[in-house]
């Protein structure tokens, strides 16, 4: 934690972070919460949101094949579009990651956390004028639970056994207790649609702050303010325009010439140049996403923990953060959780580059000959460069790594999760439980390190229904240590989300949940003329 504090202080010193940002992140990390909140309140009062104006976003990540159906939304553009027109039952707090009410006003678990009752907000109108009812909610969740649906939230919904309307309240019965259930419902696919969206999933009729006025896949989406929005504290501009810009240079040119107010995915390599533009502000947000090198624990030669340890010590993390992320990120510690998660286990020693230890473990493993690492630039931006850097740092420890560049096409189906040693990325999850369940549980589809440990699975399931936070935190520490010291994960860095806006844009919230202020950028910012 003190590392993180120092990092924050340092960012302020070198001018990468303004005070508001600093406070937000300090709060997120739980540093001096009382003083942070006072200052935060003061700064919030000084910034009265202005209403009106036309906000233009230039975003990467859309294509002509995009469909509006929130169940199938995958791209960054659709993620942001969905946030504008739709609402979820539950949202996550931008700074702490805790569950906060949205279309569900409040909720109550049973003592074993297996049955949850949600009160649905009254008097909310869809864009077509119809009132939101409990039936809409039930049907929406049912559509995403259907085994035949192609919903991206299917994995999240699997643990829900029944979805019922009991006297106007939503009652969810789970297959097993889960203390984090409300946060599962903050999955961005689960936008409440009239009639569950069965009739026309692509209609984009929702309860969100903006109404969709036009949509051309891979080109442009426009919105106007929803005058009947139930939530007055969002949607400050009159209209929003999202322009699909997949070329990084085009985005930068559009922003620096003032044609758009906000762009996403600023390349860390050019951030320093963009920063020189007087009208531009770089918005870098600490996140949960991480870039990884993954070894299959069940395949030779990676079934040998000494070889895995050798490869972990051979990673120069600081260098990776500086070179690959241009300093916009934090070093990782070989477990997939960082301090932005609730119940983060503090005080675990940071693993550093140590050629001697790497050489020691390498010798002990008895392995000889080159280790084949497969990579591609689709794994993460700069993945091929990262692999070559890794090759160099491992060489100093006497470990020979052979880097094989694979085609980007089919990388996710032919290399990742298939080949024993490859590069990849993870986007982070709302809770520690979900992160571990997605990729470290023995039976998980996406267990990409083939980490199969019954003892680990047992603690994971126990922690899930544990309502005592101290005990739960202790369990998460044990799990983190197991993955760090025995798993197949090499996690050199957590990447920041690097976006940029013109100085006209105010009120940007650095949301730890996901990129682009967790997709809510257009609903949260206002334009200062």
């Amino acid at each position, binding site marked *: 934690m003190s590392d993180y504090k120092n990092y924050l202080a340092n960012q302020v010193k070198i001018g990468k972070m303004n005070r508001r940002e600093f406070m937000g992140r300090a709060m997120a990390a739980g540093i001096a919460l009382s003083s942070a909140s006072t200052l935060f309140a003061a700064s919030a009062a000084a910034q009265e949101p202005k209403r009106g104006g036309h906000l233009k976003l230039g975003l990467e990540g859309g294509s002509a*094949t995009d469909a509006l159906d929130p169940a199938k939304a995958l791209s960054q553009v659709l993620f942001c579009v969905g946030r504008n027109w739709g609402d979820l039952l539950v949202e996550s707090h931008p700074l702490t990651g805790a569950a906060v009410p949205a279309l569900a006003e409040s909720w109550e678990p049973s003592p074993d956390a297996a049955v949850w009752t949600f009160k649905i907000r009254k008097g909310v109108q869809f864009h077509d004028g119809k009132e939101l009812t409990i039936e809409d909610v039930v049907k929406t969740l049912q559509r995403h639970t259907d085994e035949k*649906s192609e919903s991206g939230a299917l994995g999240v919904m699997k643990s829900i056994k029944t979805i019922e309307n009991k006297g106007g309240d939503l009652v969810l019965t789970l297959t097993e207790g889960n203390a984090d259930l409300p946060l599962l419902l903050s999955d961005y696919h689960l936008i409440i649609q009239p009639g569950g969206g069965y009739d026309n999933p692509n209609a984009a009729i929702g309860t969100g702050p903006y109404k969709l006025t036009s949509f*051309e*896949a*891979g080109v442009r989406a426009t919105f106007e303010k929803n005058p009947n929005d139930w939530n007055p504290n969002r949607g400050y501009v009159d209209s929003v325009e999202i*322009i699909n810009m997949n070329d990084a240079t*085009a985005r930068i040119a559009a922003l620096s*010439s003032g044609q758009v107010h906000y762009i996403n995915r600023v390349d860390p390599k050019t951030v320093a140049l963009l920063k020189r533009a007087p009208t531009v502000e770089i918005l870098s947000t600490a996140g949960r996403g991480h870039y990884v090198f993954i070894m299959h624990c069940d395949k030779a030669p990676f079934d040998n923990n000494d070889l895995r340890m050798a490869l972990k010590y051979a990673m120069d993390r600081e260098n990776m953060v500086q070179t690959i992320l241009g300093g916009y990120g934090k070093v990782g510690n070989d477990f997939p959780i960082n301090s932005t998660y609730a119940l983060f286990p503090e005080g675990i020693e940071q693993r550093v580059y140590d050629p001697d230890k790497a050489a020691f473990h390498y010798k002990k493993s008895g392995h000889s000959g080159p280790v084949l690492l497969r990579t591609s630039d689709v794994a993460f931006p700069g993945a091929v460069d990262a692999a070559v850097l890794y090759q160099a740092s491992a060489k100093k420890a006497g470990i020979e790594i052979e880097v094989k560049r694979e085609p980007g096409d*089919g990388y996710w189906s032919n290399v990742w999760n298939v080949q024993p040693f490859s590069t990849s990325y993870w986007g982070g999850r709302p809770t520690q439980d979900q992160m571990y369940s997605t990729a470290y549980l023995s039976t998980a589809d996406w267990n990409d390190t083939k980490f199969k440990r019954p003892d680990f699975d047992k603690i994971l399931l126990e922690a899930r229904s544990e309502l005592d936070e101290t005990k739960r935190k202790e369990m998460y520490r044990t799990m983190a240590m197991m993955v760090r010291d025995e798993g197949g994960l090499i996690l050199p860095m957590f990447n920041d989300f690097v976006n940029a806006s013109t100085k006209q844009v105010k009120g940007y919230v650095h949301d730890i949940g996901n990129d682009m202020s967790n997709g809510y950028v257009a609903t949260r910012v206002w334009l200062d003329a």
Partner: protein
Amino acid sequence: MAGGGPITGPALSTGPAAGGEGLSQSAPVPGALVTPPTGVVTGTFWRRFTLRRPLAALIIQRLGLSVGLLFAVSLMIFGGVEALPGDFATTYLGQSATPQAVENIRKDLGLDKPLTERYLNWLGGAVKGDFGTSWASKNSVSEQIGNRLGNSLFLAFFAALVSVPLAVALGMLAVQYRNRLPDKIINVVSLAAISLPEFFVGYLLILFFAVQLGVATFPATVYDSMGFGERLSAIALPVATLVLVVLAHMMRMTRAAILNVMSSAYVETAELKGLSAFRIIAKHAAPNAVAPVINVIALNLAYLVVGVVVVEVVFVYPGMGQYMVDAVTVRDMPVVQACGLIFAAFYIFLNMAADILAILANPRLRHPR
């Protein structure tokens, strides 16, 4: 594009213009006109028809061939996309693919059926003019392509409108001032423009006209509710880029072709008659040089329609190229096929038009030796 193949080489430029500097691509294909291709009904009627109405025969022959070519193109695209790693289900879902979701999509779209059956199914629809719906967005392919193709043609039309007359005029100018200063300036500038990659030209224009001077519209995104004037202003920069990219090629071809003709005996006669230099070029040299020039113009026009994906990306312009690339990325077969066919059809049509125009301009080509 796959449509390039057998039709790219101008089959008819066998006139006196052939075989000069820079004319390497007009390799003569003798007899392409007189010998009816196997498979087409032969006999005295066809032979007589060919001789009496060479133009009509050519068009009929080309139309027949193009149907076959389009068929071959669709087969090649289908095979090509099949050969790429990963199918629609896995590439569309990417890293977030679960076996269940992949299975659902495959079953839904019939990807589990054998290759030939899927191709024949698609072909059955396409023959009836039904290109189906996009697998990814579930929208009608014809409708979406209508939009995108309109944008592409709009851009190509204005780029051609500026570049073709400019190229021909500059080419003639270069000939007139051959080996003197204007010729050299035109040559150096056009060579420089053709040597720079198109994205770089685009970035330079954006940097100067959009970012620093702030006079041009950027991004060049066009959409339905836009007025004509707004559209024109939006495409100014991409058109300028395209003009710079295609200008040199056409200009140099014009210059080379005319120079080639200029060295022939009848031009010498014209000179001895005392005609002015410009009159010689325009009246005597140009008609004989027009075949290769038209061919290179046709190729560049085809490029303006089907090959400008990089320019589209740089200027955020919603054209056909970007649409097809997006579709290939996720293996959205109905869209890829439809785009491929349209591109191939453009190549075929433009080449045919080039041949016909060449014949019209130079009657000697109608009766090949």
